[in-house]
């Protein structure tokens, strides 16, 4: 008994000593600032900064090769804290971008070619004649963007179109990359007017495929005082496109559009405010009944 205790105690002491020495002697120098920055970053590893994950970005900031405002999900707060850690000026904030859906062809509006029975994945549906919808440009509504969002910022709405939660959307672009139909686009949050259609077919064809389709009437182009919206033609066809650099959010095109594909949304701040009101009163559309808000 005594021998067992003694030998184990000696062994333990020996190993402890070796580990202690190794810890001192082979210590890896880590800049404490990297650790500190990593601490404040959101940790979603979304890649929107252009570096491999949050740790990659933290190292790059300390090395001086990355700007302080590259972390989009972190917003203003993270930028200020990083600046404090680095002892530098915080600098200009990057303008916030959010994902916009360029399609209004929900299940009640888009015509169907066939009944899709495959797996719930937009990429797979896209290999079957660009999906079951008659419009080969539209949202397939199987939720590959929902899967892709690292922040849980997208939910499927009742009409099988994704709804972006602007509070959670960080503008990382993961959904944009994972959309086979390219109906999601990152746009500056200050831009309120969007053409929610990508169908490049001729007006008649487009209208047949979906009740909310751009019919290339050019009313928007003719009425825009800034020349910001125009029907752009390419090899595939044509579609109304907004030049966001010129758009002043006046909303004249929204009024003129006969099929209501151009939409003006409320300013983000108002939307977020409303969302808060809803949370205090009734359930928002994206409510998962988790009970956290109570």
């Amino acid at each position, binding site marked *: 008994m005594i021998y067992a205790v003694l030998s184990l105690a000696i062994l333990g002491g020996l190993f402890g000593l070796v580990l202690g020495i190794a810890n001192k002697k082979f210590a890896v120098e880590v800049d404490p600032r990297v650790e500190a920055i990593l601490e404040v970053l959101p940790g979603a590893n979304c890649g929107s900064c252009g570096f491999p994950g949050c740790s990659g970005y933290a190292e790059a900031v300390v090395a001086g090769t990355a700007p302080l405002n590259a972390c989009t999900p972190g917003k203003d707060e993270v930028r200020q804290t990083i600046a404090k850690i680095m002892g530098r000026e915080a600098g200009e904030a990057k303008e916030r971008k959010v994902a916009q859906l360029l399609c209004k062809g929900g299940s009640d509006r888009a015509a169907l070619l066939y009944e899709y029975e495959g797996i719930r994945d937009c990429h797979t549906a896209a290999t*079957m004649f660009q999906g079951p919808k008659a419009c080969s440009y539209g949202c397939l509504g199987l939720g590959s963007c929902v899967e892709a969002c690292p922040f849980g910022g997208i939910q499927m709405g009742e009409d099988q179109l994704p709804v972006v939660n602007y509070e959670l959307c960080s503008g990382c672009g993961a959904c944009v990359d994972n959309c086979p139909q390219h109906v999601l686009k990152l746009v500056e949050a200050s831009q309120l007017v969007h053409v929610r259609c990508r169908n490049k077919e001729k007006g008649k064809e487009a209208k047949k495929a979906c009740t909310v389709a751009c019919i290339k009437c050019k009313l928007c182009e003719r009425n825009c005082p800034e020349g910001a919206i125009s029907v752009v033609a390419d090899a595939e066809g044509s579609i109304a496109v907004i030049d966001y650099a010129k758009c002043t959010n006046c909303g004249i095109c929204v009024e003129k559009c006969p099929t209501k594909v151009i939409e003006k949304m409320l300013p983000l701040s108002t939307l977020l405010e409303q969302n808060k009101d809803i949370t205090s009163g009734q359930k928002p559309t994206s409510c998962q009944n988790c009970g956290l808000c109570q």
Partner: protein
Amino acid sequence: MNTSTFKGGIHLPGYKEGTEGLPIVPASIPDKVYLPIAQHIGAPCLPLVEVGDEVKKGQKIAAGKGFVTAPIHASVSGRVVAIEKKQHPGGNFVNCIVIENNGQEEWADTVKPHLQPGDLSAEEIRNIIFEAGIVGLGGAAFPAHVKYAPVEGKKADCIILNGVECEPYITADHRLMVEKAERIVAGLRYILKGTNCEQGIIAIEENKPDAIALLKKVVAADKHIRVQALQVKYPQGSEKHLIYACTQREVPVGGLPLDVGVIVNNVGTAVAIADAVEFGIPLIERVVTLSGNGIKNPANYLVRIGTLFSHLIAESGGYTGEIEKIIAGGLMMGKAVYTANIPVIKGSSGIVILKKTESKKEREYNCVRCGKCIEACPLFLEPTTLVKLAKRGLWEETAQNNVLSCIECGSCVYVCPAQIPLVQYIRRAKQAINVAKAKARAKAKSEGGKE
């Protein structure tokens, strides 16, 4: 009978009774043919004609750039009325050259018989095959001349003609072997000459005893060619499994049949080659089986490329009732299409029409870990593991588990008691891996360009 086969695989009901006894009949020639510019693996073709041009039967109307491609020929004589996007049996929209048939059946000047086909050199034969636009007629539509082109350091010593036809319902190759045995053997001899090979094997599943007996008789005097009977098992007609069954050689992972000195061709391809080498006729028609319980009169048709499915369906008396699915290709590996307004292309071996059933739609259950898919997989993969990884989007891990080796034969799905559509998930993984690869290549190219 001395038969051989491979490990794994499944036993399927054949459903061939409906058409295996019916002779090949020429389908009526439609008023309009739709010829997609992409009918083969490799670079799509560019049209050589414009709207309004008069074309003759057999005239080359589209050709591609590069080596891996096959030209496309007009299958009727008439006028080009449009070049427009149209549904393609592959599940996408492809530009089609639409020719209005003038009923003259006039051959192009380029179509000339070769008077001394026996005197042609290997290179000349390969060139004729390329110019005739011949692709593998088994389904994958890989350009034939690419397979025959000599590759440095690799020597083929054996040509296998694939007459297995393991897909249910399809009997196009079976009928061809019964009716055109002489032409198949003639085609095989040209392939042997074009590739400087010594040995030819015609492989047939033993559920076609009439074809085996007939071909054995035809090649009895030829010591270079033999007929190999194979056990009835799915997917016996897969290239790798066919090679193993006939020669006991295993194609390495990611390798080609040429790595083990074998070239595989469909029996239909051999007939097309015989026609091209002797008569100079390009690939403008093929045999298509129209079958299934949803069609009134199943048949084996000799069809002009570009004929719409709907034309053939009307020729067979239409549907028996409400239909559930139109499948372009076989039941196991074909693709369901939503309309019959789709042209027959070089790789279309069959059209299967299924009628609506009373039974409930299948739904996917959770994996019960029975391992049946692993037993069935003829490539010794673990379909269940691949699907679990694919569901989580772990594409790199699926690649490490050799997802790219999957031939999408569907054996795993057939045996799965939980009705998991394994192949769909596997296809998704393969698609994601190929997209990532293409992106990496494009990136490497743009960076290389900068330097």
